[in-house]
Each structure stands twice: as structure tokens, then as C-alpha cells.
């Protein structure tokens, strides 16, 4: 642990959705920490809860349908659980920036790029109308948009997908956030454009000392960008570690299976799919969440596995690494 205040500190967060049939748990005891300036990946498949997790950082989920059962999300030392709505509004944009998968839905189709940037600039920086246009052009320039003085007067529909995502990033950067949440920002883009956007995010993080929570289903993309990775499965962090630890020596059977299921450019061999499908959150098993699909399941897996410290910073929630405890538990 360092002396610094963490850029993001999710502690033991459990969250449920209200439904007609009762509360549906979506996140269970999730803990994620990000140091200032650090780029961290949150990897999970559909329904793992990764988007819910990222939205809850800025409390963007509809408050009347969400129940925080336990835990807290702290951004730069500010607790979002106890913050008032006014405090949250201030936090959004100035401390927490957001970029999403589909840039077109994040932009207004009826306003020019410049006008949208101007709204954000006046909101976060104040200032005169005249200076705002120059600031908008500078913001576009910073995200490496060529001819920013032309693009500033264009509408989103006139831009390519990659350009639109750059505009969304420029908007997110206006408030100079200390934490950028990027939820699948390159999934809808071509690989060459994806590559450019990833480089841009890395450069911005470096230039501004900004932390990034990069949310993705794609372990390959995450491994190219992030220093550390959290693996989310069915609402639980089942493994965390440095990117190298997770890719080269995955410990949890789910992470291992995920790495083995990924088609690779350098080999054509048979893939090893994970049998079955993730559990229905309304009907989650007791004990280890992955046990029903796990090839290495054994007796103790009926009980919740402890999170074991395998190596410096490498943790996995699996009984395979807790054989002594498993013995005691029986």
C-alpha cells in the first residue's frame, strides 16, 4: 500500500437490482484499487457486471432500482456512497471522465462538435464565449484530430467512427478528470482505428497523470494497454494481478480457460471452449461461482473460496490454492 490517495478505491462492493421477484445480486464483494496515473483493466464477459461496476463509480445507475448492499466506491478520497447528488454532479466530469462503446450515442446528433465541447468547457472552466471556440479547437487538437478548425464546425454524422470516439474523448478530457472510465471504447471500431485510440488513451494518461479503468471483454486488447487486470466473472472478482501474471500464469480455472479460448494469430490449433454458460444472476449457486463449469472442481468448491495471495499482487479466489484451508473447512 502506498501513502498516496488511490484514484479509485472500490471496497467490498455488493450491489443488487430491484425486481418484481426480489433483489437480484449483480456484484458481490468487489474490490478494485487504482493508483494515480495507473491504467487498469476490468475484464469480463457479457453479464459479468463490468458495465454496472463502471457506471456505479460515477453513480450513473438509476438510484431507485439499485441497492448498495455493502461497501463503498471512493474516487480520489471522496466517498460516492455518502455524496449528495450535488456533490456527485460536481464529481462527474471534473474527477471522473467517461467514454463508452458507441460514440454516436454519447454525442448529440443535432449539435456541432464545437457546440458540444463549448457546453462542457463553460460548465467546467467558465470563461467567455470567444475564448471557448479556441479552447474547443485546442481540445480537438489534443486528441490528434487533424484540421480541428474544420471539425469543430462539423456534426457527428459527418465524422468516421474513430473520429467520433476522439471527439467523445476530447469531451471527457475537458474537465481534466483524474480518473477516466473507458467502457469498451474500441469494440465498435476497426483494428487499425482501435490501435490508434488505445495509443491516444495511453498518451493522455501519461500527459495528465490520469488513471484509467479500461473495461473490456477482450483480454488481448486489455493486455496491450493495462498494467494490471481484474477478472470479473458473474459479479465477482475471481482473479487479479499484473497483466503478465494474468496472461502468462493465469491461476483461476476461469482465467485459464478464457486465455485458452482466445483465438491467436500465431497458431491455428483447436480452441478449448469453456463448456456451458455463465450463471443466471437470479439463480446463483452457493460456494464457488465458477464451480458448475469448472474442470477442476472438487469437494470444497461447495463453499465460497477464499481469495489467496499467490505472488506479489497476484490473487485468485480458488480452493486449488487454499488446500490447507479447504481441509480445515471440511
Amino acid at each position, binding site marked *: 500500500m502506498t501513502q498516496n490517495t488511490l484514484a479509485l478505491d472500490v471496497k467490498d462492493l455488493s450491489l443488487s437490482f430491484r425486481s418484481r421477484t426480489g433483489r437480484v445480486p449483480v456484484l458481490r464483494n468487489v474490490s478494485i484499487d487504482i493508483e494515480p496515473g495507473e491504467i487498469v483493466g476490468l475484464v469480463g464477459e457479457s453479464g459479468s457486471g463490468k458495465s454496472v461496476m463502471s457506471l456505479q463509480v460515477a453513480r450513473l445507475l438509476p438510484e431507485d432500482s439499485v441497492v448498495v448492499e455493502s461497501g463503498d466506491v471512493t474516487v480520489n478520497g471522496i466517498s460516492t456512497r455518502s455524496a449528495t447528488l450535488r456533490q456527485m454532479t460536481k464529481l462527474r466530469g471534473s474527477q471522473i471522465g467517461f467514454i463508452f462503446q458507441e460514440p454516436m450515442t454519447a454525442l448529440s446528433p443535432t449539435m456541432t462538435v464545437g457546440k458540444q465541447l463549448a457546453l462542457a468547457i463553460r460548465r467546467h472552466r467558465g470563461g467567455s464565449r470567444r475564448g471557448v471556440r479556441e479552447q474547443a479547437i485546442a481540445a480537438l487538437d489534443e486528441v490528434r484530430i487533424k484540421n480541428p478548425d474544420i471539425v469543430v464546425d462539423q456534426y457527428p454524422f459527418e465524422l468516421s467512427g474513430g473520429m467520433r470516439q476522439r471527439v467523445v474523448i476530447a469531451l471527457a478530457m475537458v474537465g481534466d478528470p483524474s480518473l477516466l472510465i473507458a467502457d469498451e471504447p474500441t469494440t465498435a471500431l476497426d483494428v*487499425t482505428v482501435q490501435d490508434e485510440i488505445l495509443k491516444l488513451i495511453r498518451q493522455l494518461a501519461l500527459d495528465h497523470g490520469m488513471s484509467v479503468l479500461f473495461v473490456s471483454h477482450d483480454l488481448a486488447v486489455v493486455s*496491450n494497454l493495462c498494467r494490471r487486470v481484474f477478472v470479473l466473472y458473474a459479479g465477482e472478482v475471481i482473479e487479479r494481478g499484473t497483466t503478465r501474471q494474468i496472461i502468462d500464469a493465469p491461476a483461476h480455472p476461469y482465467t485459464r480457460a478464457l486465455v485458452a*479460448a*482466445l483465438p491467436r494469430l500465431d497458431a491455428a490449433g483447436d480452441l*478449448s*471452449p*469453456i463448456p456451458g454458460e455463465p450463471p443466471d444472476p437470479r439463480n446463483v449457486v452457493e460456494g464457488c461461482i465458477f464451480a458448475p463449469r469448472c474442470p477442476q472442481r472438487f469437494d470444497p468448491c461447495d463453499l465460497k473460496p477464499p481469495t489467496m495471495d499467490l505472488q506479489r499482487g497476484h490473487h485468485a479466489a480458488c480452493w486449488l490454492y487454499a488446500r490447507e484451508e479447504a481441509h480445515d473447512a471440511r
Partner: protein
Amino acid sequence: MPADEEPLLQVENLDKTFVTRRRGGDHRTVAADKVSLAVKAGDALGVVGESGSGKTTLVNMIMGLERPDAGDIRFRGRSLTARGGSFPYGEIQIVFQDPRSSLDPRMTVRSLLREPLTNLPKARRRELGAEEKLRELAGRVGLLPGHLDRRSHEFSGGQRQRIAIARALVTRPALVVLDEPTSALDVSIQAQILNLLRDLQRDYQLTYVFVSHNLAVVRHLCNEVAVLAAGQVVEAGATSEVFSAPRDDYTRTLLAAAPSLG
């Protein structure tokens, strides 16, 4: 050339240009520029390229949904583009990217599987649409007999894609066009579907045209690959060779940009 050595599908010098009317002059988009491909029986040809490269237009032309401006498409040596010719229904089938939009959620799996048989001669329709044939096919793609009575909206994305694959295979096609069939799926489910496609290709002696932006997926499934850029085939050949020693600059850029676990 003897008939059995002829490619199953031959695409020759296809041209297609779309014109959009705009202020200050029409805008022309060249979607296919002298595109030529040959797919031998038993091949899996990967067609890779980015948005706007002309992948979809090529698929549409192969499926007879779009007419080329020039050039020819021949299937078993017969032209598909000649006037008065008819499309070989049932012999060429397609699987789309998103089974949520390609399957009618109100139809049962049984009626979804029978629908492609509508255009076949009656005797053939009866034979292929028989209950035991459908059960056998469902089993081959990893569905249970009980699933035939359920509606597609009750299934997960991976299972829906299994239904879409069964729907393509029900007519016993020789050629299946797969248009980004795993792009909407999670990695763990994608691996299941890719392995399934591989097994089906072997068991039913299928020929694939596999369209994808995902190079790793193409590397896994296809023995041949063609790289499309701005409507042109910039490089084509055996997948292992093209991927290990790309000759074209664009192919190199594409391979370098592809994320890998590295």
C-alpha cells in the same frame, strides 16, 4: 479443365460502384474493383477487411442480393449473374452476425428450421423437413430435441447462433457464407461456435466463405484468406503464409494493429 477440378465458387473481376446524389456532384463509392476469388470445394476462405472495404457488398453479390456492374460469379461452373439464370436455392446458405435480428423471435425453432426449405421441390422439402432429420440436425449443432418447440427469444446468444447455423445447414448446402458469425459473442462462447463450425465443415463436407474483421478468428478457421481494402483484393493466399509473411503493406498494417496476448 475437368469439372471436378473447377472451383466450387469462382468470382471474376467483379465491379460494383454505388452512387449517392449530393450537392455539388454525385459521390461515388467503389465497393468492388475487379474482385476475383476462387474457392475450391472443402476450402474455408477467410475474407478480411475493415469497414468500407467491400466485404458486405461482396457477400450480397454472392448471395444474389446485389447485382454486380461487371464481372461474373460462377457456382459449380454455372453463372449466377447471367440474365434468366436462377439462384441455386439451398445450395448456397448464409449465417449472419447477429442471431437476435436474423431469427424471428416469435417462431419456434422447428418452424425456423423448416422455413429455408420453402423454395425446394416438395419431395425434397418433405425429406429434409422430417421430424427425425430436424432432431438429428439440432443434435449436431448442440441443441436438444426439446429445444425444437421453444422460441428463439428464449435462448442465449450462443444458442441462437447454433439455431442460425442449423437453419443454414437444413437444406444441405455445399457452400455456406458466414458473415461475422461470432462477432456478437463472448470469447468463451465464440470458441464453442468456431469449434462447431470446424466439426460441421468436416462432417458435412462444407465449403466456407468466412467474412470477418477478426484476423485471429480467420487464422483459426480458414485455410485460405483474401484481404480486401477499398473494394480491391490486395493479397490472397494460404492463411499460414499470408499471416507469417504478408507481402502487401496494408496486410502488414492490419496484422500489426491486431491485438494479441503477446
